[in-house]
Each structure stands twice: as C-alpha cells, then as structure tokens.
C-alpha cells in the first residue's frame, strides 16, 4: 500500500504531541484525550487501507479531535499553548485535509449520495476554516477587537436575534429587495426601448456607462437628501446601482439571437412583438440572468453602504457603523454573517431559477 505523505507527517506530529508538553494546566480529561484521539485518527489514516468505512471513521475521529482541541483551549490559564498542542492541531488539520481529499476522489453510483458528497466538501472546508480560526485566535491570544473567535460571534448572534432580524428586515427585505426589483425591472424595460429606438442606443448607452461608474459613496448622501433617511433613499441607491448592469446585459442579450433565426421569423411574416417574445427574449435569458446575479450582490452592498450616510436607528449598515464606533466588533461580525448568508441564499435562489429557465443553454444541457 502506498502511504500518503500527509498521513505520514500527521502520524509523526500526533506521536510527537503525545510526549511533548502541551502547556495545558493540570491533568484533566481533555488533557489526555485530545492528543490521544489525534493519534488514533493518524493511526487510522496511516495503517487502515482506504475504504468508505475507514474514511467515515477518520472523519468522525478528526472532528472529535477538533472538538477536544477547542475544549482544551479553556485550560491555558497560567501559560499559552506549547509545542505539543500545536503539533496536535497541525496533525488534526492535515488529517482533515487528507479526509477531504479522499472524499473528493470518491465516485458514488446513486446520484443522491453524489449530491450529498458534493455538498459535504464545501461544508467541511467551511468547518475547518472556523475550527482553525477559533484555535489560532484564542491560542495566540489575538485581541478580540482585531478578530473575535467564531464562538464569540455565534454567541453574539444567538443573543441579538431580535436586533439582527429588525436590521435584516429594514435593509434586506425593504431597501435591497425593493431597489433590486425596481432597478432590474426598469433596466429591462429601458433595454427593450433602447433596442427599438436606434438613436437611444447611440446616445443613452454611453451616458449609462458614465452613471454606472458613479461611486456609491457619492450617490448615497444625495439620495438621502432627496428621499429622506428611511429605507426609500437606500432603495434609490440600489436602483441606480442595479439599473445599468441590467440595461447593458439585456441590450447585449437582445442582440444575441442569430441572423438565421431572425430571418426565419421574417419568412413567417412575424411581427416585432412576436419575434421579441418567441425568439429574442428567450435567447437573451442567459444574459438577463447574468445581470440578475450580479445585481443580487450589488443590491445588498448598496443598501448597507447607503445606510452609512444617514438612516433611522435600525438597519444593517447603521448597526455596523455604530457598533464599530463602540468597539463592539462581535456585533459587526454578526451583521457580516447575516449579510453573507442572505447574499449567498439569494444568489443561490437566482441560480436555481436560471437553471430551470435556461436549461437549453450549452452550459447546462444534460
């Protein structure tokens, strides 16, 4: 059996951590169990031939080890973690790396299992990002104002759900979604008009590019002056940010249908509206969805940043700017977490709709 160099190094580190000092106070359960479990996981990785059963065992052991290592962080009252502890951490990390590598190489017959394993990979990646973040920040005693550990952020999220929900409602459900709908909708309609009226294409599109280049920090205070400090001014900023990506993409999409396809409609004596509905809009869909995806991230950024320039005492952007001033960095991170979650969920939702609508596109064909 060819042994993976990752497993060999991890085994050496785990063995070293058994004898080297960890720096933890007094012998307790975790004092012994953490290095022991890392060692057991390394032994499985090195000596048991790779199979599904051994991979599952390795995954379980490595995550129990991570759990124990994080628990052990509470036992460094007198001194910081020593060399033995870091050997365990690096060993566990290498083993997790190896496990993910083996999981990625697996091919499942059942499509559901394959989907599950495809989902497991990014989840494991994300989990280890958090585990290492927690261990490094707390192990090295990084000041929480620079970077709080994930556990602290999680505790802050759990404790401030009503505030976070109110902010989310204000910034995402009101400002971002309203602005997104109006911006994308008017961009789409404008594109149809621009496409129909040639002089607008020549005159309006260059000015459109100019407006698209305007910085959000310049637009936002003006919108607050125009529309007041409530969510309407934020929605206006989002409208300005999302209008032109939609306009430009839809105009490009309307030109995407081939000459032959258009001649075909002409031979049928098709009207402008018929050609638009039956040929040009379906052909433009990949472009339109591109704009919808770009705009979904732009809308959230726009709504949050716009709140920096005047807002009622609620909203994600307002909370971020206020809590930074009060040095409550954990609350800032909690808002970042909510924004990231909302952003990726809406992006994912649009991608799902895109797949259903443009199933015929070469990149999605099955």
């Amino acid at each position: 059996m060819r042994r993976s160099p990752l497993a060999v190094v991890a085994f050496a580190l785990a063995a070293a951590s058994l004898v080297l000092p960890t720096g933890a106070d007094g012998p307790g359960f975790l004092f012994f169990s953490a290095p022991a479990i890392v060692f057991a996981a390394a032994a499985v990785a090195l000596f048991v031939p790779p199979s599904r059963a051994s991979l599952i065992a390795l995954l379980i052991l490595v995550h129990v080890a991570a759990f124990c290592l994080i628990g052990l962080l509470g036992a460094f009252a007198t001194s910081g973690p020593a060399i033995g502890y870091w050997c365990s951490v690096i060993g566990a990390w290498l083993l997790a790396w190896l496990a993910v590598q083996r999981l990625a190489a697996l091919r499942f017959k059942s499509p559901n299992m394959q989907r599950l394993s495809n989902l497991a990979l990014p989840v494991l990646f994300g989990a280890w990002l958090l585990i290492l973040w927690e261990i490094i920040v707390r192990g090295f005693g990084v000041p929480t104002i620079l970077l709080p550990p994930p556990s602290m952020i999680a505790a802050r999220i759990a404790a401030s759900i009503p505030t976070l929900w109110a902010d989310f409602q204000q910034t995402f459900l009101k400002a971002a979604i309203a602005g997104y709908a109006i911006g994308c909708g008017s961009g789409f309609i404008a594109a149809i008009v621009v496409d129909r009226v040639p002089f607008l294409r020549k005159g309006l599109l260059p000015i459109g590019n100019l407006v698209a280049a305007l910085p959000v920090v310049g637009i936002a205070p003006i919108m607050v002056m125009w529309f007041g400090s409530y969510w309407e001014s934020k929605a206006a900023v989002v409208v300005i940010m999302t209008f032109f990506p939609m306009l430009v993409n839809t105009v490009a999409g309307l030109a995407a249908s081939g000459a032959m396809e258009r001649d075909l409609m002409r031979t049928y004596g098709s009207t402008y509206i018929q050609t638009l509905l039956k040929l040009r809009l379906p052909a433009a869909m990949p472009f339109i969805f591109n704009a919808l995806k770009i705009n979904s991230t732009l809308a959230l950024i726009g709504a949050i940043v716009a709140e920096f320039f005047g807002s009622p005492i609620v909203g994600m952007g307002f909370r971020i700017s206020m809590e930074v001033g009060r040095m409550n960095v954990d609350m800032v991170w909690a808002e970042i977490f909510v924004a990231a979650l909302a952003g990726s969920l809406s992006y994912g939702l649009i991608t799902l709709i895109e797949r259903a609508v443009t199933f015929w596109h070469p990149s999605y064909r099955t």
Partner: protein
Amino acid sequence: MTVVALRPKAKTMADAAPKNVIDVNELSLVFQTNDGPVNALSNINLAVGGGEFVSFIGPSGCGKTTLLRVIADLEQPTSGSISVNGMTPSEARQKRAYGYVFQAAALYPWRTIAGNISLPLEVMGIPKAERKDRIARNLELVNLSGFEKKFPWQLSGGMQQRASIARALSFDPHLLLMDEPFGALDEIVRDHLNEELLKLWAKTQKTVVFVTHSIPEAVFLSTKIVVMSPRPGRIHEIIDCDLGPERTLDIRETPKFLEIAHRVREGLRHGHSYDAAHL
C-alpha cells in the same frame, strides 16, 4: 378591405401571365460594401412553373443563395422585377406563400421538436387543436414521429434538418425554398435525405427551389437545373433534367444521369473559364 381589393387584381395577373410560381425579369442586385459595389446578381431571367423542382448550382460567390433570398424577400433587388405567386416577394412573404429551409436547422434550443414545428403555426395564429394535428402529420411526413418531446440538441444533425423541413411544411406552403439544406451532413445521411425529399415532393406536389453545390444532388433531385457563375453572379445555362418522377439512388449509375451530370459539369467549367478570361 385591402384583402378584398387585392384578390381580383392578383387573379387577373395570374390569368394574364403563364402559370408560373416564380417569374424573374432582368433582375440585378448590387451590394454596397466597404470595398466598393459587388454585383451579386446580374440580369437574371428565370421562370419556375408549379410543381417543378428547380436547383441552383454554382461555385461559391455565384449568387445562388442571394437569388433564393431575393425570392424570399430577405434581400431587395437593385433593378429588374420579380413576382412570386403573381405578387411581389414582400406580399408573398406576408401571405406566408413559402417555407424556407436554411443551411443549418436553426431550431430553437428552448423548444422541443414539437414546439419548433408549432412555431410558425403560433406566429400565424392557428388554433391549438389544429396545431397539434399538423405537428403530428408533418413529423410523420419526415419520419420523426415519437421525437415530439425531444429537444433539438438531443437529435443528430440529419434528424434536426428533417425537423426543420417539417417546420417549413407545417403551414402547408405551396412553395418550398431550400438553401443547401444538406450541405453540413455526411454523404450517407445526405443520400438518404435526398431520397426522402423526392418522396415528399412527389407526395405533396409542391414547387421546390433548391440551392446546392453538389452536381449529383442537383441531377438526382431536379426537373430543371440552373447553372450559375460568379463575378458578376448570373445564370450561365438552364438544363432540363427529365429523368422521370420515379427515381431511386440507383439512377445515378444510368447513362442518362451521367450525361446530364456531364452537361452540368461542363456548364460550370465554362462559367469559370469565362470568369478566368475576364481576369
């Protein structure tokens, strides 16, 4: 009301002229390009009778596709006159007088095969029940029954082109314009589709104008072969091809077939040497 006004006029025109589906008189077309004017078509005279199968053959640049596009009102002639079913090409197009088959199948990938054949019927406002009927009938005509629910990209190139022929036939035009429809297919599929096209032509009694650059294809299919030559695009010779209505692929070995093919080849060569003399 315009329809009422037009009808008697169209009728008298058809009565006065011989019953030609297509009449072309001294037609010329000059494209204005960045390199100056290009004589795509020069002094074309042509008559296509009802039920004929006419092929345009010639080297690339001889204007055979352009001539077909003029008939279809996809290009406008610079001078001369042309009538299709006794009307201008534009009127004929608005009245859906012809079905056009392009070099590629040009099926819409977001529509199923049935949906693609339904497309012209939807544009023309034919009710749903009749659409269904016509889709089934025309798919059977091109031997594609059972593929209604497939998407174009799930079919082979030959099947796609057959579906596009079914689409052109779906609204039952009397005139079928085909622009190198089998040019992108391999020879085996091409032979097969040529045979099928002949059967279809015999069955439907349609007038077909067919653009090709293959001599055997032209001789095998046509009742009349129009040999064209380039620069400026013009008709070099019109060859009658009276091989009879019953044709199988075996006919290509007969002396008569070979003789006509030889005449076409000679015609093409003369067209070229004329071109070379000009250079």
